[in-house]
């Protein structure tokens, strides 16, 4: 039956309607926009997933015409789209793009943006929702946010206004809180969508599906059965042309503060009552708040920082970090970070959670390894047997996305010899569909107003509360910056972090 509040036609549709929207990308000519955002928008258009009334306004400091911006967008989409563009769809999308070259702090310039948004409303005969995507250098986030307020563009009587903010959300706890203060002085929390693109990855979302759609793991998912958890985000590449950004950031800010702590929350959170945005985020925040920020003395014991030196990766000689173009010779920036954390709650108390990330490591892999405790009594020890190893459950985020479980199995033969074998589920073999890029999902969710896969303010605050003392201690040289040869699994100092009897999983 027809109800006035529900749309009865959406039942059963995989692709739900998205409200008519004008998307404004600040930093529209930047690298992220060219490589990710514009191709993501094309792929949404290709699939018919964009709102039926959609406009894109690119804003950057560069002075150029609409046509020059469209030409740049066309080239970027042709180069970086995950599928070969259909030229008619591409032209249709590009024709809806406009460009404004205004300095981000030029409040009068924002009047032009307001006029462009109103023009789009008039063309469509209705007020379109506004989504402001801040894809600029982080120092402009407060500048743009306040300028939007000064220009009166932060709210609309008849349309939803949203702000999508790229990472990094602050560079430490104080700057994150300061930025938050500015953002909250302009927008309500429900208007703010902080991007951590890891959360848009299908395999990251599958961590929740794996835990909460399968009953068999829940009974062992606690301190009674789990010995340790290792979360790894290893890259085999160096810093490329990002020396400026990376040297100011380092591995801890670049990956641990956001992506890796998000993975940790997904592994350790309690089941939410529903998958509604705030229910999920409430549970994640509880995990972060249960991690005690380390004291300066503890930082030296529970963290390792290091940078790569000259080495060989994949058979090719590569320079050390200090030899990379644009890296200052006196740099103290870490390209490798390893941490031992603990979640102090009933479920996880006493279970060490190890995080490690680094550049120029032996291979590229992002995974969560959950190691169970050994069996209480070894009945199968015998000559020639590798023996019963503790079970390991591996959730691989990339590449070879999937889940594997190591089990002990009898080696065929007369004697009772045991060796570990793997039981594997691989995404590529069990699902036919190609996963959409994380940004496609996130842009669509932001336009729809679904914040489930975005980071809430108190999550960001809790993340920085854990990381801030480490940054401070590292800034004071505790522990000293270690080194590792490019192409190896990391610095030897990282082994000591694990404690006796534990080893890092081979990369």
């Amino acid at each position, binding site marked *: 039956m027809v109800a006035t509040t529900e749309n009865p036609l959406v*039942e*059963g549709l995989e692709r739900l309607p998205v409200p008519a929207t004008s998307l404004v990308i600040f930093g529209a000519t930047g690298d992220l926009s060219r490589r990710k955002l514009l191709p993501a928008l094309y792929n949404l258009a290709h699939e018919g997933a964009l709102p039926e*009334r959609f406009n894109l306004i690119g804003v950057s400091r560069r002075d150029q015409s609409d046509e020059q911006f469209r030409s740049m967008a066309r080239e970027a989409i042709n180069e970086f789209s995950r599928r070969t563009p259909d030229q008619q769809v591409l032209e249709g999308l590009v024709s809806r793009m406009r460009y404004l070259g205004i300095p981000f702090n030029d409040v009068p310039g924002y009047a032009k943006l307001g006029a462009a948004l109103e023009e789009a409303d008039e063309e469509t005969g209705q007020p379109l929702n506004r989504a402001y995507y801040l894809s600029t250098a982080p120092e402009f986030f407060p500048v743009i946010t306040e300028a939007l307020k000064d220009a009166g563009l932060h709210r609309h009587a008849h349309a939803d206004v949203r702000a999508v903010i790229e990472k990094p959300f602050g560079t430490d706890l104080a700057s994150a809180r300061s930025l938050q203060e500015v953002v909250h002085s302009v927008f309500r929390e429900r208007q703010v969508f902080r991007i951590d693109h890891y959360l848009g990855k299908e395999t990251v979302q599958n961590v929740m599906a794996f835990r909460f759609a399968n009953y068999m793991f829940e009974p062992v998912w606690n301190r009674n059965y789990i010995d340790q958890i290792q979360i790894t985000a290893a890259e085999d590449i160096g810093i490329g042309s990002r020396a400026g950004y990376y040297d100011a950031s380092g591995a801890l800010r670049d990956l641990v503060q956001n992506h890796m702590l998000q993975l940790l929350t997904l592994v350790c959170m309690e089941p939410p009552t529903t998958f509604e945005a705030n229910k999920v985020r409430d549970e994640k925040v509880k995990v972060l708040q249960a991690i005690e920020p380390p004291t300066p003395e503890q930082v030296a014991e529970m963290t390792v920082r290091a940078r790569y030196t000259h080495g060989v990766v994949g058979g090719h000689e590569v320079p050390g970090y200090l030899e990379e173009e644009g890296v200052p010779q006196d740099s103290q920036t870490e390209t490798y970070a390893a941490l031992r954390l603990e979640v102090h709650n009933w479920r996880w108390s006493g279970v060490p959670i190890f995080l490690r990330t680094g550049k120029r490591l032996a291979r590229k892999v992002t995974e969560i390894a959950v190691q169970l405790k050994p069996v209480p009594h070894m009945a199968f020890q015998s000559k020639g047997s590798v023996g019963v190893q503790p079970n390991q459950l591996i959730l691989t985020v990339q590449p070879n996305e999937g889940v594997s479980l190591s089990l002990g199995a009898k080696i065929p033969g007369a004697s009772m010899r045991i060796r570990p074998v793997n039981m594997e589920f691989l995404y590529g073999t069990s699902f036919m569909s190609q996963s959409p890029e994380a940004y496609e999902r996130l842009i669509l969710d932001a336009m729809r107003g679904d914040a489930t896969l975005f980071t809430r303010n108190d999550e960001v605050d809790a993340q920085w509360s854990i990381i801030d003392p480490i940054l401070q201690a590292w800034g004071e040289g505790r522990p000293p910056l270690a080194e590792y040869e490019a192409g190896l699994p990391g610095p030897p100092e990282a082994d000591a972090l694990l404690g006796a009897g534990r080893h890092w999983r081979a990369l």
Partner: protein
Amino acid sequence: MDEVWSERNTTPAKIEAALRRIVTEHHHSDHPFVPARVLNVVVVVDADFRGEIENRFERVGRYHPSRLVLCAVEPGRDSIDAWAGIGTDDAEPVPGHIAVARERVEIEIGQRHLSKLDTIVDPLLVSDLATMVWAPHGHDAAIDSLRRLAQIVLVDTQDEPDVDRSLARVEDLSEHAYVVDLAWLRSTPWRERVAAAFDPPHLRTALAGVSAVTVRHREDSLAAAMLFCGWLSSRLGWKPGPLARSDAGLSGHARARRQEVRIRLEPTHQNAPGLAGVTIETASGEAVSLDRAPGGLRAARRARDGSEQTWTVLGASRGEGGILGEGVRQALLRDPTYRPALGCARVLAR
């Protein structure tokens, strides 16, 4: 296909053993090779037209079934000949990545095998995977025989010239299995766009005042048009009546809560099968139209005062290869709106 086995006058047990051997050998020789484990698809075709179906499967993109069992029916044949092969989608394996392999079996059978086809096909299916069956050239007896093995039946209600008979057959099949109808999938973008057109809260109320629906369709796609109207009827709580032939095609009425809804189905010329356009009018004089256009659908909205706006809703055509691929993908999903739509379409088709 990287590995191939074939035998004349063979048996299902021998085919199954050959497949097992090929998979094991391939795994030993190439460790990153992993067989896909998503779906069995059994296709029953006329031997003379197997090439056309094979070509369609070549174009399904990434939606290949894990194991495809193609049964080619040759009139008068008594024995079974078979061919089995295994291959990967990737021309060149990528170091550090898995190569997903797919298995394919082709068996040549006679008409006499159809009523007991399940006994031939059963050993060839991967256990614990869902099985979808499809008989694009008729062969209803084969589908009936395979019912006990199949969780999903793929159909294309537009294949049958008699739409009433076609819809009745699908309704019967849907009592026992989940039906994926290619004619229904061709209308998906239209359904999505009509739902989007009425999604803004101030427009949702207009759904209660719909007074006329006109669906333009390719001549042979009447079933898709009926299913589309069936969908509107079932979602909006209309009671449809049978359509009658009129000058432009078929027309009739459905009873909504407030008023009669005039329904017109108009055949039109276009290359692609499926719908060509939709117009939905309301009693207060508003109208929404969608028509095929380059790069998407051309949308038009007429306001009560008669003013009109037009724009293009972006989206690329999936083509017929894409539709079959979508059919394979949909096999593992569930659309709760198809059966109610089918029920209403049957009334319209009477």
